[in-house]
């Protein structure tokens, strides 16, 4: 983790690296949840409501992945700045959109 300029020593705890991997894990967890939501939408045939829910879930996953990529890029320095509240709120918004779209899909599902 030595900066290219090289006067800051690397962090012996590899904190930026661990944080990067935590973002990756979270994106993977999001992908699994989004896939289950997509399965929910298509399980009993294609319907307009199902397609709308499906695209909302896909959009939420895409938005979360964009936030992850940006944060991972920012974590590349030796002494990364703290995450901004905007990034945190954005990530949480993506999860809430997935949850709301999924709950609607569960409600609207066939008997």
């Amino acid at each position: 983790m030595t900066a290219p300029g090289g006067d800051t020593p690397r962090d012996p705890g590899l904190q930026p690296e661990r944080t990067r991997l935590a973002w990756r894990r979270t994106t993977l967890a999001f992908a699994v949840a989004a896939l289950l939501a997509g399965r929910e939408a298509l399980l009993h045939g294609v319907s307009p409501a199902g397609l709308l829910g499906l695209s909302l879930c896909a959009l939420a996953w895409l938005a979360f992945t964009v936030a992850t990529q940006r944060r991972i890029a920012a974590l590349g320095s030796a002494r990364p700045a703290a995450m901004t509240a905007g990034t945190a709120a954005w990530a949480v918004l993506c999860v809430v959109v997935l949850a709301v779209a999924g709950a609607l899909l569960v409600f609207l599902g066939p008997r």
Partner: protein
Amino acid sequence: MAPASPGLTGRPRRARPQAARYCGAVIKHVRAAAGAVALWFAPARVRAEGTTPDYRFSLANERTFLAWLRTALALVGGGFAVDQFLRDLRRPVRVTLAVVLVVGGAMCAVRAVNHWVRSERAMRRGEDLPVSRFPALLAVLVALVAVAMLLTAVLGWAG
């Protein structure tokens, strides 16, 4: 009898301030929550306070936030799994369990950002980290869902 009467007359007199204190605590709590929500969208205000902590502490706080987000995603995904893979359950039971899990996940996510902001602010001010009863509430919710699943499974086999 004499010592009892001051207690009897004292109780209603004490009751009103207690209720007032309770209302005050609720108002304070709501105000604190509103202030915290305002903070999510005003990162500059978080940064204006106190001193910047060691970046490693901020990164640890960030990882804790992400761990809570994964917990939220696991609850949401678990809700979808209940609806899709427990097709033998009657629909009201299945949908109730699924919606409880999904809504619990959404609450977990919202709480994650709130707790992250409060911890970040406490670290900047050099205060103690905020305490929270949320983990206990989540544990109770998960335990209740587990018992409900067990009951439906046992009753399903019996019926």
